[in-house]
């Protein structure tokens, strides 16, 4: 289990990383925390000609308040978020999500940008950031663009990004002080990817409500009709059959167990909406 040969470059800036990607004509790969790419390299499933290491790019670790929005550098580690690097206004949900990713050793190195770029449908950031309706800021040879997280994953392990594009950060609206959220993750053991997960965000002040379902084999599903129903229910409750049929419609379940699990995870997430 050793990688096939590759060249190794250490980028010191975003520009350098982007230039490196452009120069390799699609054969280079970014390595951030290496927590997903490392195993892929060792199993020889990933065989880049060049590895561009961005772990030392300090620009990518920036966390900033920009107007009503929060900018989180792509190189921010799960551990940093777990430890409270985000301002309180956004911390609750993201801190809770970070805490339940993998093990601390993985969180120490794994980054939010790497997680999104890797596009594992069972991963936690793609789910949570879809629920927050965040966007990724991307830099490529032709400049900047912004991609909603919701449309980032084209298919499992595939994003809409071009091979020479770099995620520089995530931009998300700050929630109001009355916003509530909840996160449910069902996995067979601590530190393992989810078999089913759900995040609910409900912000009365802005009338924002999102319910997102995460499963191992398909990109996260935004449950629009459920969110509308929830927003219009004064008690913030949803009947179980509504959730059940929404799961059936989502087409994420292979058998009755999947339907049951996904329904339960969604129902529990809705039940447990808590004040941020």
């Amino acid at each position: 289990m050793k990688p096939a040969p590759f060249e190794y470059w250490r980028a010191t800036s975003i520009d350098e990383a982007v230039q490196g990607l452009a120069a390799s004509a699609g054969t280079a790969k970014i390595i951030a925390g290496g927590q997903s790419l490392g195993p892929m390299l060792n199993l020889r499933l990933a065989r880049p000609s060049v590895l561009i290491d961005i772990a030392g790019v300090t620009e990518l670790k920036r966390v900033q308040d920009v107007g009503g929005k929060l900018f989180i550098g792509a190189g921010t580690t799960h551990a940093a978020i777990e430890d409270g690097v985000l301002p309180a206004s956004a911390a609750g949900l993201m801190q809770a999500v970070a805490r339940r990713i993998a093990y601390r050793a993985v969180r120490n190195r794994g980054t939010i940008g790497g997680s999104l770029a890797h596009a594992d449908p069972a991963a936690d950031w793609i789910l949570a950031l879809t629920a927050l309706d965040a966007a990724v800021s991307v830099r490529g040879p032709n400049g900047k663009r912004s991609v909603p997280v919701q449309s980032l994953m084209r298919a499992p392990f595939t994003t809409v990004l071009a091979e020479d594009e770099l995620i520089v950060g995530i931009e998300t609206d700050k929630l109001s002080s009355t916003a509530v959220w909840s996160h449910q993750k069902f996995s067979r053991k601590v530190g393992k990817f989810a078999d089913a997960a759900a995040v609910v965000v409900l912000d009365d002040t802005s009338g924002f409500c999102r319910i997102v379902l995460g499963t191992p084999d398909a990109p996260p599903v935004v449950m629009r009709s459920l969110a509308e129903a929830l927003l219009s229910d004064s008690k913030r409750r949803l009947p179980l059959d509504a959730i059940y049929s929404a799961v059936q419609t989502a087409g994420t379940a292979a058998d009755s167990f999947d339907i049951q699990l996904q329904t339960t995870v969604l129902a529990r997430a809705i039940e447990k909406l808590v004040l941020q």
Partner: protein
Amino acid sequence: MDDAIDAAGQGIGSSVLRKEDDRHMRGRGRFIPDFKMDGLSEVAFVRSPLAHALIVSIAKPAGAAGWVFIRDDLAGVKPIRSVMRAPGFRASDHHPLAHGKVRFVGEPIAMCVAPSRALAEDLAESVDVHLEELTAVVDAKAVNGGPYVHDEWGAHTFLETSSDNGIEEIAKAAAVTVKREFHMSRQVVNSMEGKAILAYWDDLKSQLVVYTSTQVPHMIRTGIAEHLGLDQGAVRVVAPDVGGGFGYKCVLQAEELCIAWLAMTFRKPFRWTEDRREHLTSGANCREHFYSVTAYADVRGKLLGIDAEITVDAGAYSVWPFTACLEATMAAGHFPGPYAFKGYRSKSWSVATNKPAILPYRGVARTGICFAMELTIDAVARAVGREPWEVRRENLVPEDAMPYVNPTGKVYDSGDYRRSLDIAVKEIDLPAVRRKQAAMADGGHLIGVGFANYIEMTAHGTKLFAAVGLPFVPGAEPATLRFTPDGGLEIRVGVQSHGQGMETSLAQIAHEVLGIDLGKIAVVHGDTELTPFSTGTYASRSITMAGGAVAEGCRILAERMRPIAAHLLQCGADSVVLRAGTFYGPSGNISVPEVARTWYMRPEQLSGELSVCGLEVLGLYRPKVDTGQYSYGTHAAVVSIDRLTGALRILDYVIVEDCGRRVNPLIVAGQTYGGAAQGIGTALLEEMQFDTNGQPLASTLADYLMPGAAEMPNIRLHHIETLSPNTAYGIKGVGEGGAIPPPAAIFNAVNDAFAGTGVEVNTTPLTPRRLYGAIERWELGRRGAGA
């Protein structure tokens, strides 16, 4: 014997910290991958991508002739052919590199040598193997006609066995008949350190030196010498620090022969370090038992007889020296477990499949039979409408029947099996669990409580092994001991310690006899050059066997020293007493180290006769009765089942255990907790699945789930100490017990939660999906009953 006074609290029964912890906690252990050596080459294997195929051709890359090797290159190396001496046994030839055919995904086809492992893997990628796929045999329960794993057999089984002491007569008298099927899935051993081998040629001694991560260095020396055609004296096997074995490392591996052959042939150092993918998919498969059990009982649930049909999926080859059939024959021979009943019929099939060979994993067979037997007992109890623990208790061999001979002729030496169950029932607070269960009956979670009793045959000796028919039989266990001139004691044993803490516990036994400070006792193991021949560490034998040998050697040493001490104290030998490391005479005393110093450095002080007696001795040990010493115990689990997701949580877990005299209670507890963790893995998480083509469905730990700290309940451990009447200090083994009953206790708890509805679970591991399937049936049953 002299008074054994334990002044410093270092002897038998003391929970001293392990001597080996110092190096391990500081990261200073010496494992094979840590070694550096000039000119060391690393090896990678080209492994079969198919489960069953003919090898059409193997093309080495151009110019790689001296770097890539296939079977034909290994001139003079014999295939591993491990024969069980049993009527009808079919032998397999396991070539160190595949020959003609590949028989499982991961079977080594070629080996590639390079200055680094990464380069060796690059080379492996460039070897062109052309295979012609054959239909794979993957379901041991559905074998019928060809193709065969071993064509020349024209059959699918390594061995079939049967026994019957008249079950049909007994069945006629039964008021209750209970029939059940059970399946314990295939697992992987997953020692923390995988296999590793480093071999070189020692020109100084004209000797092949093989460093290997093994539990049985002397057996591996025998195996390597026999298969490579060398004198055993020309082979030295060293096991440095070994990161766990659990049975995986007590067999001779094809890779061991390959690396040894390279070193022998090229007279240079070579190393292979198994990676986790190799460990999971090729090296270390185990278990995979299927049971069909019929129990005959009276109206109270008292067992009259058991009829057990046992199928073991043994994989492609028979491992040396434990063979492909140890699991099935042990399962058949030990099925009755701790229960007293008369009628017993068994049939067993060891089936060859296109999967890796199974190995004897911690608990060997007994984790499976305990699972089948304990679930059967509970099913009988439900059939007669009684509490499972009561029916279990009445069926357990009573203390006053000890020593007890079971229907297959096994002799249980001692123990109070009922008492261990009673303690578990009390500790788990059964009435409180029953109240909670009733209170929560209509809530989101179901509660269940389960018990499992087990016996653990340990230190089985010559007679028992001779009857099994393996290629080897262990005899008297040796230890050699000597004093250093400064009064330190060196103990050399042929067993191997790889996590059991024997560098400490064997020293404690020596301290018990001689009273020397533990800091001055060194236990040397893991090197055929330095230690006496032993069949090694397996079957929970080392503390009893090597411990007995150490005690015997120390006693001989004490007797050698006594006249010297008496001479120095100017009194008669009879009036000298050894106590806590000092010889006391009527009018003075002299320490053991002082006696040693005199003998080595000042022999002129001794008379002629005394100066030739020597302080280097051989202690040989065999228990008084060598059919095995039986440790035993009870595990009790309370579980909560999430009705909506099939998630299971262990709310409480109690272990009651009796392993005779505990040499070091801390080490015993560690063995038990670790074993229980593995048993919980068996029950809930671990499963090596294959598709219908024999492709393994897990090749990393992302897919093969192991229990971690967070999955462990807070185990409450209780001990009984019933001394074995047959061993030194009444010691019994304890290495495997913890891993035997957890699946049984946990499944019984789940079935208890479903009690009254006819729903039962019977297949490990109990994944949420499997458990939810049972919940669905249970809900249906409740609805049907109008609940």
